């Protein structure tokens, strides 16, 4: 089998029923997709298969033979973050960071597919991805910011939401 992973054609030695997740993590050492449940229930393992978001834990390797796979490693680098990566950083859309890779890949697919900055549309598109830390607010903010083409330098400052600071009222 062969996969084109982040633009690089890569021969695969794993068995045909090995999950794409295990191919990436265990055979190839690409560790951004996470084994959060291996039941398809959390979305931490989502990668792009020919541009479409897929739960890699549910995907037998043989079923994607020859496909182009994109992982977070293919989005950008610390020195050259992609817009989604910039927005996730800027908005603190990652707390513990464990759901983040899957969340970003689904976000990338949503944006590539012409998604809007409508909150409900984003919620629906990412609805199967579980984040236990953030309460999702900042993830939605980050995706909406990318759709709107907002630019910022995540190395300088972080975003905030409409929190009202009443100061030391007591």
């Amino acid at each position: 089998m062969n996969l084109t992973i982040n633009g690089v054609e890569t021969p695969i030695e794993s068995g045909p029923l090995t999950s794409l997740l295990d191919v990436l993590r265990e055979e190839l050492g690409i560790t951004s997709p996470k084994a959060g449940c291996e039941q398809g229930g959390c979305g931490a393992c989502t990668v792009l298969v020919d541009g479409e978001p897929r739960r890699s834990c549910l995907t037998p390797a043989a079923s994607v033979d020859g496909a182009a796979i994109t992982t977070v490693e293919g989005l950008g680098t610390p020195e050259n973050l992609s817009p989604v990566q910039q927005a996730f950083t800027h908005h603190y859309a990652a707390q513990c960071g464990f759901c983040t890779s899957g969340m970003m890949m689904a976000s990338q697919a949503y944006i590539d597919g012409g998604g809007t900055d409508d909150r409900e549309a984003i919620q629906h598109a990412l609805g199967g991805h579980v984040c236990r830390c953030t309460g999702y607010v900042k993830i939605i903010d980050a995706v909406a910011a990318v759709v709107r083409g907002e630019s910022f330098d995540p190395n300088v400052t972080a975003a905030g939401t409409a929190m009202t600071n009443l100061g030391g009222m007591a």
Partner: protein
Amino acid sequence: MAVKTGRGFAAIEYPTGMNQNGDPSQAWIKVKPDGRIDVFAGTSDIGNGSKTIQSQIVAETIGVPYEWITYDNSNTDSSPVCTGTFASRATFVAGKAVEKAAENVRQKILEIAGKELEIDPADLEIIDGEVIAKGAPQKKISVPDVAAAATWGYGELLTGTGAQLKPYATIVEPETGKVDLPPHSAISYASCAAEVDVDEETGVVTVKRLWQCYDVGKSINPTLVEGQIEGGAVQGLGLGILENCYPYYPSVEHRGGQFGAYLVPGMEDLPQIDTLIIENPSADGPFGAKGIGEMANNAQPPAIATAVFDAVGVWVTELPITPEKVLRALQKKAAGADAPKRDGKTVIFDAELSVNAVGTGIAFGTAA
């Protein structure tokens, strides 16, 4: 479809740091020859952002840019004791330890700078990476130059340690719970209002909106404060209407082993969240901060339970408030069987849930 809307309100308090204290955190800091700062602490970052917060505290305390800080909590060989990341103590207790260590480093920097500038260290301050004479800002030396001087000139290591430990509050009267010291180091406060929709035909509760106000003491990083409050709100929503390991508690049947069967809140369950903060500083926390992480899921469940009552007139006091529980309560109400028992001046809600009704070995209060 008969969907009714209701609102409920709750006010809570929560202690910061371990109950009864006695939970140490320690830190040590060293300065590299170019003035960059290495912080070693044992606080696990579980997503709460303690790497960030503690780095901010160090930068602020010493007076150098945040970008100069490296933070290492990676192992027990290099990092000193931290009791752990729980009990809202990562900022409040462990942050205080790094603040103390940073203050000691600041003093060391001032000492060397004083020698270099021939000024009493007490007359120096550090602003944005430069040691400056108070009242004579032209007299200054950069922290990198101080660090270089310490390293190559004076043969000194610019370093400092800090430890935070409030003594254990012993219970001196087990019969009454009386303690000899305050068992809490600081108490945080919060209020929350919830607005829900309840479908009377199916019993499904939807949380539409949460208004929340938290006293955080001092918001060291507003974005992290928001993150704790938003994340806590959604966990509180889960507690209120969704999550249960044992859907038929006290039975243990049908425990869910997957995300499809154990109902963690999803993105589509997110209500509108309006957040207010108050900064009523604590005496013991770094820069007046209190813990915010733990309490963030405590106020929603009672606010939601009350909002459900407001919407459809039934109390569900076994969490989570599932559609089934709401429907059963509505049917009971329709049958006129929901009224609390009244016995003289006593009003008894939920009598059927009481130990009095179920067990025989222990009894509660006036219904005994």
